[in-house]
C-alpha cells in the first residue's frame, strides 16, 4: 500500500502543491466555510488517475485487490481531509495573525472526511465503467459527485451551522464514509451482480431518423448539459440557499454544467470526424453545447431570482453573464484537444474556474462600459469556435502521444 501511495504522490505532487496554494489562498481571503467549495480539487488527481487506467497496471502487481482499493481510499478520502484541515490551519496562522479557529478546523476536518467519504461511497455504486478501462464516465462521475457534494456542504455550513440538520448531515456523511471504506473495491472492480450488462431495449432499432439530423446538433449530449444546468439550481432550491448566492457562485455553476455537456463527447471525436460533417459544422455544434447548458443554468437561476428578488437580467447581470459565457465557451474548446481526455480536461478545468473568477472580479472592480464586456464575451465565443475547429483538424487531438513515443524510440 505504501508503494502505491508514494508512487501516486510522486507523480501528482505538483498538482497537490497547486491545490494547496489555491485553496490556501481562498481560505485566506474568504470565510472558512467557503473553502469547502474547493475540496474537490484535492480529489481531482485521483479522478485523472482512474481516467488514465492505471488500475490495469496495479492489478498485474503482486498486491491484493483490497490493498489497491484501500490505497485509493486513502488518497481519495484521507489525503484531502488532512490537506484541507492543514491548509485552513496554515491560512489562519499566516494570514489571520494566528487567529486559528480550532472549532472551525475540527469542523473542516469532519466535514471534509464526511464529504469525501460520501462521494467515494456513492462513486462505488454509480461508476458504470470499470476503472480498469478508464474513460470519461469514471472521470466525470467522480468529479461531478465531488463538486456537487462540496458545494452543497458549503451551503449547509453557511446557512445553518447550529441546526440539527447539519449534525444529521454530518453523521450521515460519516456513516457513508465508513460504508464506502467497507466497499472500497467497488470503485475499481465492478461488482458483477450490481452492474447490468444491458438495459431494456426495443427488439428493433426504431426507424425514426437519428437526432443528429436536426441541424447536426448532438442533442443527446446537449441534454447532459441541460441536466447539469437544471439539476444544480434545483438542488439549491431544495436547500433554500439561493438567497445567499452572489455572482461569485456563477462561475462554479456554469463551468461545471458546460464541461459536463461536452466531456462525454470528447472520447467520441474520432467517430464524429468520420461522419459527413465539416470541421466548422462540428465546431459550431461543440460551441452550442456549453451555450445550451449555460442557457439552462441561467433559466434555472432566473427562476430562483425571480421568485425571490423579483427580477433577474438586470444590466449588471448581463454585463457579467455575457463575458463569463465567452470565457467558458473558450476554455471548453480545449476539451477535444486530447482524445484521451488527460490534457484537455486539465486545461479546461484549470483555466475555467480562475478565468471565471477573474472576469467576475474585474467586472465588479472596474467601471468599464457594459459594451466592452459584451463585445469581449462575443469575441471569446468566436475565438472558441476557431479553437474548436483547430483542435478538430489537429493531429494532436487524435494521436497525442505520437511525438513522445517516437522520441523515446529514437
Amino acid at each position, binding site marked *: 500500500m505504501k508503494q502505491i501511495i508514494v508512487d501516486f504522490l510522486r507523480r501528482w505532487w505538483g498538482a497537490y502543491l497547486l491545490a494547496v496554494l489555491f485553496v490556501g489562498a481562498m481560505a485566506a481571503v474568504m470565510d472558512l466555510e467557503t473553502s469547502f467549495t474547493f475540496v474537490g480539487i484535492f480529489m481531482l488527481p485521483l479522478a485523472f488517475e482512474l481516467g488514465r487506467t492505471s488500475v490495469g497496471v496495479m492489478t498485474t502487481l503482486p498486491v491484493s485487490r483490497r490493498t489497491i482499493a484501500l490505497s485509493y481510499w486513502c488518497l481519495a478520502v484521507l489525503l484531502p481531509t488532512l490537506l484541507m484541515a492543514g491548509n485552513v490551519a496554515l491560512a489562519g496562522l499566516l494570514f489571520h495573525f494566528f487567529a486559528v479557529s480550532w472549532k472551525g478546523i475540527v469542523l473542516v476536518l469532519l466535514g471534509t472526511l464526511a464529504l469525501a467519504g460520501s462521494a467515494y461511497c456513492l462513486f462505488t455504486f454509480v461508476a458504470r465503467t470499470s476503472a480498469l478501462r478508464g474513460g470519461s464516465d469514471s472521470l466525470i462521475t467522480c468529479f461531478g459527485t465531488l463538486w456537487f457534494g462540496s458545494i452543497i456542504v458549503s451551503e449547509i455550513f453557511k446557512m445553518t451551522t447550529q441546526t440539527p440538520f447539519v449534525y444529521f448531515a454530518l453523521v450521515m456523511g460519516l456513516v457513508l464514509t465508513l460504508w464506502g471504506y467497507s466497499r472500497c473495491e467497488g470503485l475499481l472492480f465492478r461488482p458483477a451482480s450490481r452492474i447490468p*450488462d444491458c438495459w431494456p431495449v426495443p427488439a428493433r*432499432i426504431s426507424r425514426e431518423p437519428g437526432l443528429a439530423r436536426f441541424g447536426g446538433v448532438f442533442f443527446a449530449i446537449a441534454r447532459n448539459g441541460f441536466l447539469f444546468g437544471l439539476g444544480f439550481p434545483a438542488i439549491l432550491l431544495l436547500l433554500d440557499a439561493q438567497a445567499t448566492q452572489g455572482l461569485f457562485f456563477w462561475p462554479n455553476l456554469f463551468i461545471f454544467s458546460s464541461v459536463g455537456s461536452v466531456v462525454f463527447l470528447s472520447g*467520441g471525436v474520432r467517430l464524429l470526424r468520420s461522419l459527413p*460533417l465539416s*470541421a466548422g459544422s462540428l465546431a459550431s455544434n461543440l460551441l452550442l453545447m456549453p451555450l445550451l447548458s449555460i442557457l439552462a443554468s441561467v433559466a434555472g437561476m432566473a427562476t430562483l431570482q425571480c421568485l425571490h428578488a423579483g427580477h433577474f437580467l438586470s444590466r449588471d447581470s448581463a454585463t457579467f453573464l455575457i463575458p463569463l459565457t465567452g470565457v467558458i465557451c473558450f476554455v471548453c474548446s480545449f476539451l477535444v484537444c486530447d*482524445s484521451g481526455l488527460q490534457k484537455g480536461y486539465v486545461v479546461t478545468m484549470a483555466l475555467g474556474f480562475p478565468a471565471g473568477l477573474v472576469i467576475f472580479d474585474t467586472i465588479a472592480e472596474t467601471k468599464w462600459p457594459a459594451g466592452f464586456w459584451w463585445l469581449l464575451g462575443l469575441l471569446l465565443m468566436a475565438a472558441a469556435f476557431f479553437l474548436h475547429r483547430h483542435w478538430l483538424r*489537429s*493531429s494532436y487531438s*487524435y494521436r497525442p502521444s505520437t511525438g513522445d513515443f517516437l522520441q523515446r524510440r529514437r
Partner: protein
Amino acid sequence: MNANAIEIRGLKKSFGHFQLGPLDLTVPQGAIYGLIGPNAAGKTTTLDLIMGMGDADAGSITVLGLDHRRDEVAMKRQVGYASPAVNFQAWGQVWKVIRFVRGFYPSWDERYCQQLLKTLQVNVADATGTLSFGTRIKLGLILALSWHPRVLILDEPTAGLDAVSKQQIFSELLAAVQDEERTVVISSHGLSDLERFADNLGLIKNGQVLLEGSTSELIARFLLVDFVAHSGAAFTPVAGFYVQKRESDRWQALVDKRKNSLEALGALGARQISTTPVTLEDVFIALVAQSNL
C-alpha cells in the same frame, strides 16, 4: 472518370522527430488495398490524414476525385471509416450509437445492418462501456459497412478478432467489393490475411513507401533462395539481395528478381542453389529488417 479511388501525392506530415513522406500512394477503384508496415511506420497517420484527422504539412489527397479537405463533407458521404481507436462510450448503448450514426447517411441499409449485427454477433442492447476490444471493432465495421460506402478505410480492422470473426469480416469485404465495386483500404499486421484477400499492397517504413503494386506481382517478384557459398561477404552489398540467415557456409536469402538474378548469384560463387516461393511475411520481414531502406 477517375480510375483511382484514392490518390495521395507528396503527402508530408511531421511529428517531432518523425516525418511521414513525401508519400505517394495510389489505390485503384474496386480493389482491396492493404497498407502494411512496421509499428510507427505512418500507416494510421496516413489514414487519419485522409479522413481529416490532422492537417498535412504538404501534399494532396484525392478520394473519388474529391479533395479531402475542400470537399470534406461530400467525400465523407462516400467514405466509411473504422478503427479500434474509435470510442463509442459517450453513447451508452450499441443501439444508440447506431441510431446516431444512421441519421447521417440517407443510404443506410437497416436490413443489412441487422444482418451484420447477427453475423458478427453484436448485441444492440450491450453497453458500449462493457464491449470487448473485438466487439468494439466489429461495431465500428458494422457502422462503416451498413450504408454501402464507395470507399472503406479500415485501420487495423482485424486486431483482436478471433479466426472466425476475421473470416466473416473478410467475407463481407470481399462480397462488398465484388457486388458493388467498392474500394477497401486496410491497414493491418495480419499479413497472411492480406496475402489472401488484398489485390494491391503498399509497404511503408519510416514514413516512406518501400513497395507498392499488385499483391501477386509483388510476391512473384521475390524468391527465397538457399545456397552454399564459402565466402558470403560478397553477397551482402549486392542490390536486391536480402540475407535471411546464415549457418556456416549455408545461406538463405531473399532475392528481388528485378534487381538481381540467380545467375548473378552463381557468378559470385553460390553453389547448390535452390529456390522456394515466398510468402508476404517473408518479403515483409526481409525488407523491413534492412536498416538501410
